[in-house]
């Protein structure tokens, strides 16, 4: 093109050429600017509260449905069953509850995780918040997994209710106004175990195997807070992020150590598949101490080995074998009516445990009932601020035999439970093991060494009329 502009006019032409280019470039930039910024003003929507319409409330949870902790899938499935049941009766104040369960594989994208490539607890939570516009995150599971998203939910103003974990992370009301736990803290649980050990096995040498995150660390902290002497060598951990052979190799080493140190009471803060592996390895090594297993790792149907018989655990629900219990009957009814029940509760419909409730189901049903009660208390005007206020004021009635109460300064949830033992079932037709509550007492306590273990009678909350 340059040869056209020859002679004296060439400079002028070039200048004009440049000016034209500049003008067109800046017009283009301005155009793009208005195109881009246009979105910001067009982003407004009609409803004032995310996830809430006149006919529905959308909530969500990130839970393991595949991978190493897939067994916990039943928890959120039971919650979904409760919401489905409530919806079938017209919903809460005319609004149906839409419960979205996203598989996050316990934030360990390996070991049979089929949630998809690159899926993490954060990415699934982001999807719930940014795409599904959930009103609240309800009943998400896992100490380490949920630890990665509590800031995200807090900073984006999304209520984060009934986190399925006993970590004391969820009990920080000053920092996280919208964050609430559900089950007793692992510290409190360990303190009740320590209470049992001091009463029944005062001379026992105590050891602990804990998951290598806050789950295990909080459990150990509770044992130490109860002034139980545990030698450093007997404070052991496992890493849930490794492959099964590596995990097993580590466990064999840990259990051999405990055996060599003549430890005869072992507290396990482990998830059910690891509990099972530990019991089997100990059996193979000819080692049989008194096991005390955290409530989250003790469910006899998930652990599924007769080696668990005799172990002590904490149970904050009625015994699943108590078929006369009105809440057990109600949860059974709710689960049977759930359209997806056969896929979501495989153990309930086939095999040795058919027709038997397990602790996971009662757990999920309990927080779902509590959420319905909080939502109902809001009446027609559903807002996030209202929900958070309701959490600290509503006197929840759930299947749990310990009162579920929150306050402005306490967001943990249940403060304890019953001591229980895994018992072999004499009737070969039903499930081989079940949880039997020891005595008729509830033990509640706090996290620190200064809060004593208090004994009280268990409560049975009547089922609200609108739920039955």
């Amino acid at each position: 093109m340059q040869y056209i502009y020859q002679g004296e006019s060439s400079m002028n032409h070039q200048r004009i050429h440049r000016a034209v280019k500049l003008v067109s470039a800046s017009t283009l930039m301005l155009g793009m600017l208005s195109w881009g910024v246009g979105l910001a003003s067009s982003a407004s929507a009609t409803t004032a509260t995310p996830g809430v319409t006149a006919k529905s409330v959308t909530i969500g949870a990130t839970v393991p449905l595949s991978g190493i902790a897939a067994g916990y899938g039943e928890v959120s499935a039971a919650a979904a069953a409760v919401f489905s049941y409530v919806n079938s009766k017209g919903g809460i104040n005319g609004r149906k509850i839409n419960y979205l369960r996203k598989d996050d594989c316990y934030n360990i994208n390996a070991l049979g995780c089929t949630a998809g490539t690159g899926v993490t607890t954060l990415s699934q939570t982001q999807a719930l918040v940014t795409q599904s516009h959930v009103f609240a995150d309800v009943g998400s599971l896992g100490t380490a997994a949920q630890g990665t998203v509590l800031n995200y939910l807090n900073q984006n103003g999304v209520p984060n209710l009934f986190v399925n974990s006993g970590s004391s992370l969820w009990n920080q009301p000053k920092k996280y106004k919208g964050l609430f736990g559900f089950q007793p803290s692992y510290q409190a649980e360990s303190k009740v175990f320590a209470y049992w050990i001091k009463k029944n096995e005062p001379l026992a040498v105590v050891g602990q195997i804990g998951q290598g995150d806050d789950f295990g660390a909080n459990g150990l902290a509770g044992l130490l807070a109860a002034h139980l002497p545990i030698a450093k060598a007997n404070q052991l951990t496992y890493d849930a992020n490794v492959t099964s052979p590596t995990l097993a190799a580590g466990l064999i080493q840990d259990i051999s150590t405990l055996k060599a140190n003549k430890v005869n009471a072992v507290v396990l803060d482990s998830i059910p598949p690891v509990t099972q592996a530990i019991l089997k390895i100990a059996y193979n090594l000819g080692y049989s101490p008194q096991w005390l297993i955290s409530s989250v790792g003790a469910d006899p149907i998930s652990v599924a080995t007769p080696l668990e018989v005799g172990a002590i655990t904490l149970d904050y629900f009625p015994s699943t074998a108590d078929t006369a219990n009105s809440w057990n009957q109600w949860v059974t009814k709710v689960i049977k009516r759930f359209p997806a029940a056969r896929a979501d509760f495989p153990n309930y419909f086939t095999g040795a445990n058919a027709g038997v409730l397990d602790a996971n189901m009662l757990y999920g049903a309990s927080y779902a009932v509590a959420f319905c009660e909080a939502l109902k208390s809001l009446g027609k005007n559903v807002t996030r601020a209202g929900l958070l206020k309701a959490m600290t004021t509503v006197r929840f009635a759930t299947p749990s035999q310990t009162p579920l109460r929150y306050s402005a300064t306490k967001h943990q949830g249940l403060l304890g439970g019953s001591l229980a033992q895994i018992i072999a079932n004499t009737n070969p037709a039903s499930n081989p093991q079940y949880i039997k509550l020891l005595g008729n007492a509830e033990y509640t306590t706090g996290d620190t060494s200064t809060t004593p273990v208090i004994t009280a009678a268990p409560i049975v909350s009547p089922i609200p009329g609108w739920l039955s």
Partner: protein
Amino acid sequence: MKWLTTLRDARPTTSRALGITLLTLLALLITFRLSALDDAKLASGAAIAIVVVGLSWLIGWSGQVSLGNSGFMAVGAYVTAIWANHHATTPIFVTLLLATGCGALSGLVLALPSTRLRGPYLAGMTLAFSFAVVPLALNFPSVTGASSGLTLNFLNAPSWFAGLFTGPQATVNANAQWSADVAIVVAAVAFFFMANLFHSRTGRAMRLIRDNDVAAELTGVNLPRTRTLAFVISAAYAGLGGSLLTLLNGSVTPQTYSIALSILLLTLMVLGGIGTLSGAVLGGLIYSYSDNLVSLVNKVTGVNPASTFGANLKGIVFGALLILTMLLAPRGLVGLGSQLVRLFAQLRNRT
């Protein structure tokens, strides 16, 4: 267009700055149009692109192979998390610089013995470093939080930026886009420095070493120093990328920085194009959208994503892509572009 060429020749740095600024502005504008989820993807893509360009510089320009860049990323990531937990008010750019410095320092420590090694031995040494990172993080729980890792606050949009958004999802959208915009700006600055580095005296020395180290030494290039420098810069970029990723994810866990990440970085670099800036950008984008690519493959082939085969499809797709790239376009997607242009020109000349 002549004024552009003139500008490029007379003031290369200014023209690079201009070009990158324009591209950055364009990217920032695009984030206004993207959904909050795409913003999050783009942001992590930008962080990975920074690491990839650092690796690309090391491998493509100095000819040294490193499998340890996930380890340098971990250094940056942990420094960021630890610092942010103790000094919540530090501006993020200071935190990023600090992490970059620590990344560089770790690179220097590893480079001193590494520069005596070549080829597979060097790769082996950096591989060992990569392997050591996860156990190191797991065994100092009071500092690193063991397998739970550390959490920190996510990036919060400042009020002037958040004011641009309205509606019930305003906070969510503003925070997501702010994170993406910060990541893009950080990546732009990193790329600007790398663009200059490529064409600097050091950059030329580096290429000479890669092609013929005897010749380089004869022309007065200090071999150990230049090799070490390449390593340190690559590690600094990895530290910066790890730091940015930590700020975007609001947490750091040891599993994120396993050896698998190092392999992934290498793959992204090769797919994009070794030794090029645009290749690194492409690598970052591939990282961001690889999930979409895999689900597309799922859909086309009819593989059930919930099956074990489906769960491992990402590795298979990436492996296949890597082999195909090595066979058909050894210079990556960027090289493929120019390969096609040349092919087209040849065809036109023939007619």
